[in-house]
């Protein structure tokens, strides 16, 4: 387990972390999710020992690591921009940590071979980083970090510098890799979709504080605040409450608890239909299925009646 207790960190006047405490269970794949400047990268770097906290402690697998240099923490760190050793081959990069540990040559060769197979780079062992694509460099960086069998693997926006297609592939691949290797993994992202797709657990951070911790479903279904709700998915307003747009019911006749609304626009986006509305002069919107839209048969200018579905999670604003 990684236990972060009461950690604060200031950069000059800027408070990057304010009294942050969070537990990350062993063997989990956890996302630190939040907007940029929210403190998530700083927290990751403090866990790695690349930054020192002003106050508070960091414990890794039961050992107080607060004052341990990164060299002795047993962490693997993957940087957004790969931090590839440009003057070494792929083999040299992955072997680096093992050579520093003065492992026998035969063992290093075997282990590097094994890791390159794991990240599908076995035929690139003798290339230099400059001859690899971004996705390949990041997989090399991952193999390099895994080579030293770290207690925890830390990834700082690992897919942030890659294009959309490669990013999607690597996400799925990271998930599968974690299912194989089981090392406690923490990754930083500002992309809620990435966090929801890959992580077992998400720590939402903003303004240097932890906003909420939970499984992706938990956070989506039961957000603790309007911020978390808004950050994890689309929201819309119904009568002073924030709900998910797919939790809005549109009816052709008034019923208990409905509000009258004027249809402004109906946009078909494949399977779903987005309806822009005016409720008492305030703009809002709802997301319904094609089937519902067909039954409602609404066109701009019509009056419809809306309410939040009974199952909807609502947050008063």
């Amino acid at each position, binding site marked *: 387990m990684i236990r972060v207790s009461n950690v604060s960190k200031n950069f000059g006047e800027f408070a990057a972390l304010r009294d942050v405490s969070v537990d990350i269970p062993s063997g989990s794949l956890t996302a630190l999710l939040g907007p940029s400047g929210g403190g998530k990268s700083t927290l990751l770097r403090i866990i*790695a020992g690349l930054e020192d906290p002003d106050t508070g402690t960091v414990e890794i697998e039961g050992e107080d690591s607060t004052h341990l240099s*990164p*060299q002795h*923490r047993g962490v693997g*760190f993957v940087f957004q921009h790969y931090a590839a*050793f440009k003057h070494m081959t792929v083999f040299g990069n992955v072997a680096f940590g093992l050579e*520093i540990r003065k492992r026998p040559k035969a063992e290093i060769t075997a282990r590097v071979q094994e890791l390159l197979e794991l990240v599908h780079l076995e035929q690139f062992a003798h290339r230099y980083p400059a001859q690899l694509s971004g996705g390949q460099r990041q997989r090399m960086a991952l193999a*390099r970090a895994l080579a030293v069998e770290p207690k925890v693997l830390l990834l700082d926006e690992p897919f942030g510098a890659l294009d959309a297609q490669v990013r999607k592939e690597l996400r799925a691949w990271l998930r599968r890799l974690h299912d194989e290797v089981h090392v406690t993994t923490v990754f930083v992202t500002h992309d809620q979709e990435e966090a929801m797709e890959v992580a077992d657990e998400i720590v939402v951070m903003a303004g240097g504080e932890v906003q909420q911790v939970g499984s992706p479903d938990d956070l989506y279904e039961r957000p603790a605040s309007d911020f978390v709700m808004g950050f994890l998915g689309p929201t819309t307003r119904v009568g002073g409450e924030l709900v998910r747009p797919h939790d809005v019911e549109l009816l052709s006749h008034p019923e208990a608890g409905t509000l009258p609304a004027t249809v402004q626009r109906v946009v078909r986006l494949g399977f779903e239909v987005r309806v822009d509305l005016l409720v008492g002069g305030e703009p809002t919107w709802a997301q319904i299925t094609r089937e519902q839209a067909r039954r409602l048969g609404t066109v701009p200018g019509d009056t419809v009646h809306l309410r939040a579905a009974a199952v909807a999670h609502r947050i008063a604003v």
Partner: protein
Amino acid sequence: MTRYALRSIALVYLLFLLVLPVGLICWTTFADGIGPVVDALTTPSALHAFAVTAQVAVLSVVANTLFGVGAALLLVRHSFPGKRVLNMLVDLPIAVSPVVVGLALILVYGRFAPFGGWLADRGIDVIFSLPGMVLATVFVSLPLVVRAVTPVLEEIGTEQEQAARTLGAGPWQTFRRITLPAVRWALAYGMVLALARSLGEYGAVAVVSGRIKDQTQTLTLFVEERFQNFDQQSAYAAAFAMAAIAILTLLVTTLLRPREDAR
């Protein structure tokens, strides 16, 4: 039209300033064939001047390499009070005339100065001997390695070093295996520039060496002394040798530069 005019002006300017004098040195040197040149360059005084120059240049390049890498690391990787002053001091040798450097060194290390006297009592002569000449040469070529390495250090950033740290490397291992290889071409470029500057230094060395023939005479001083004594053949031969060495180092730097870009 203007383009051709500008080109011709540049060419004529360089012709009179550079090509003609250097060319004439070659011409004059080899006016009587290669024999007299070889003779002039193999006299005991000339050979001694070569040896002194080599010693001074090598020692000062070593000193400037150590200082240059250290100062560049300090300036790029650390912030500390007085950083701007250090940054300014590094460039000082470019602004100060070498003659002033020589006189200043005499003021500190001369036999009749407090520190110089203290050293002399312990048998260490700085002025009018090799240590003073090395000091003077180190001073005038001080910025070259620092200024060559600094931009590359800035460009490579700290992430590779941090990655090495998380992989278990200590500070020294990180420097030797990550930082140094990353700046190696820039460092080599700076060292070659420093070497060229050290070989050609005249003013500061002239002041602190005392120009003692067959003792503290470097090649530049040898050329000047031969010229004053109407031994033009030796003066031109040595001057030609220096020009050849300079062109050689320039060739090496142009070879190094593209490699640095492609790094």
